[in-house]
């Protein structure tokens, strides 16, 4: 755990107690079973927004608290523990970052206060195929109208405004497109992790350019990746703790199965990987707050390492629980499904290892 300021500790503690009281994994299960159209519980999201979590990175003049990315990471980590579904990453992190870094004063004034109080939801529409390839953009803009297809748009069904990547004159840019534009059509994607996602088709939708081009896109993506890694850190730690508790209580052959060295050493390995991953995630978030030139490198490190660790822990959670872990009634499957969806989102381990090597010049 990073060394926190008093305000950060308070923020983390309030997130921790809210998640435990109001949003246990059972709440996620209820949301899934209800087949919620948006992929999250709107009432819970409103509570989160009331506590100011949607505005953690947003400047005070636009209704946020300007606490920074490490602080938002603390909230995301706690939400990740119980797989709490919400538009916080898409809206309060992704869309908010795009506006903070690339919005004009008018654009900021129009959207940031609404993102900060949760009255509007923003979403990033950058992927066009089954793999995250943000540099390959087929969508185009001409005469202020955007045309193209985006897929795996996180919280795409809930969004009031999209931040969309497209090219204009061969250059990659980011644009704001309102969801109620006549040129926007969206359809829900039903994914294994039950979270909100959509295909979105733009047909000559009115598009307002943000300032910053491909560099802005990369900056926004790195902020989202680091925040997602923080959510994964919380989920992986919870998956590990639940599994460890099972090792201490499940009895076979007349003893708790946690007394078997074959399982003990795998548990020790997971703990080691979780500790290493925490360092990488916290370093990436701190680098963003410090506006360090190493952000791309450190974010790819964090997303890749965290992806490997969540992958390992989610598999072991099912395996160590045995048959009960295979049942839908147990939570292990939720963590397994969320792990793969989070790994694939905004670049999987292979993507980020390749990016890390390129940054290092090999």
């Amino acid at each position: 755990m990073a060394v926190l300021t008093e305000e950060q500790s308070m923020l983390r503690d309030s997130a921790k107690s809210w998640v435990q009281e109001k949003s246990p994994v059972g709440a996620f299960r209820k949301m899934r079973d209800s087949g919620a159209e948006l992929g999250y519980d709107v009432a819970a999201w409103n509570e989160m927004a009331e506590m100011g979590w949607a505005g953690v990175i947003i400047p005070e003049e636009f209704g946020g608290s300007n606490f920074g990315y490490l602080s938002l990471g603390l909230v995301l980590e706690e939400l990740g523990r119980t797989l709490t579904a919400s538009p916080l990453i898409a809206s309060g992190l992704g869309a908010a970052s795009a506006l903070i870094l690339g919005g004009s004063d008018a654009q900021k004034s129009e959207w940031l206060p609404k993102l900060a109080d949760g009255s509007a939801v923003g979403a990033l529409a950058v992927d066009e195929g089954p793999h995250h390839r943000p540099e390959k953009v087929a969508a185009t803009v001409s005469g202020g109208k955007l045309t193209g297809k985006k897929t795996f748009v996180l919280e795409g069904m809930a969004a009031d405004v999209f931040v969309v990547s497209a090219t204009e004159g061969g250059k990659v840019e980011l644009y704001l497109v309102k969801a109620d534009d006549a040129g926007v059509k969206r359809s829900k994607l039903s994914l294994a992790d039950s979270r909100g996602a959509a295909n979105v088709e733009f047909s000559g939708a009115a598009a307002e350019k943000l300032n910053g081009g491909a560099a802005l896109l990369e900056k926004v993506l790195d902020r989202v990746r680091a925040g997602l890694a923080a959510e994964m850190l919380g989920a992986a730690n919870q998956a590990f703790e639940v599994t460890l508790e099972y090792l201490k209580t499940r009895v076979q052959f007349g003893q708790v199965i946690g007394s078997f060295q074959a399982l003990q050493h795998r548990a020790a390995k997971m703990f080691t990987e979780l500790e290493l991953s925490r360092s990488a995630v916290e370093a990436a978030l701190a680098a963003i707050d410090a506006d360090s030139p190493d952000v791309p490198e450190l974010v790819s490190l964090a997303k890749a390492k965290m992806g490997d660790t969540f992958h390992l822990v989610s598999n072991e959670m099912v395996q160590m629980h045995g048959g009960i872990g295979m049942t839908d009634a147990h939570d292990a499957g939720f963590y397994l499904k969320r792990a793969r969806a989070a790994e694939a989102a905004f670049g999987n381990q292979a993507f980020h290892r390749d990016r890390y090597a390129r940054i290092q010049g090999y």
Partner: protein
Amino acid sequence: MADFGGTDLDAFRKEVRDWVEANFPASLKGKPNPMAREERGNDPTPEQEAWRKAVGSKGWGTPTWPKEYGGGGLSGAEARIVQGEFARAGAYNPIGGMGVMMFGPTLLEYGTEAQKQEHIPPICRGDLQWCQGFSEPNAGSDLASLQTKAEDKGDHFIINGSKVWTSGGQFADWMFCLVRTDPAKKHEGISFVLFSMHQPGVEVRPIPLINGMAPFCETFFTDARAEKKDLVGPLNGGWTIAKRLLQHERSGISGMGGGMGGSSLSDLAKKYVGVDEEGRIADHDLRNRVVRNAMETKVFQQTAFRVMAESKGNSGPSAATSIMKNAGTWIAQERHELTLEIMGHQGLGWEGDDFAKDELEIVRAWLYGKAFTIFGGSQEVQSNIVSKRILGLPDLTQAQ
């Protein structure tokens, strides 16, 4: 120069810089510490001796140890200045070895005033070398089953038995040693004693290893003698002290995972394997493994930094060192494997002019590196410790 008390670090830096300039022999610039090569048995040169004596008399080889026992008495910030100025001048720290790494910190914590007065100053001066008598032929990972016996003879003990994997035993002046003083108990029957290696009852035999060198010895005791005043801690209370000392040892070994960054591996790979049209290492399978090792190295360094930041205010190594040892040694071993693979046949040369110096060194380093996950508590013992002490799983092995 503790008088500075950290209030005027710039003045202190200037003082250190001037002192190094006046005292460090130019002929030693950029040379490694000769003690690291002691297994080759070269006698130190007059310049090396002069530098050791100069640093030893300042106490700057053990900068944060108390001044009354011959240490530098410096604050952490001042110690980093000394380290930085040495590095700037290309000067090695001539004071080192097991006395500095493990025994000194442990004696400062557990020794009596008289023991500290007698044994710490020669370590700070580099006058005496220490070796560790822990492992035995039948007490490796299960260290507490050790059998070397010490009989109480009033003012002294008589010791019989043998130790193995004694690092630098052939060059050591003194041994800190775990002995059995109560055969009826396991952990509570072990005592921690000190004695001179220069006595008739002590015989040392170097053990050639798979890498062609002999950094470790077998040590045999036949009625060897240890004075009562050199018993550290209470009789039969040596295990607690041994555990503490092992933490110091492990934090030293895990440091091997840091050091060299992954970038040098990638440079080697570019040189030996070549690059494709995009400038990537031409063998993409190798590139993938090189970048994984580079990233693991970076995460390990981030974690070492995090552990340090979090444990500020703590006096010594924390339980997290157990995680660090396994993580650090796996990374270091993988780096050796990758280096060997990158060099191909050129990385397998044993001796002769057909191979560059780096190439001959890597094959020895690769082989020696296999010891990293064995000594100082094997990776399996480390995993037992994490399972039991940190995760609270049932203990069936009485791991250290």
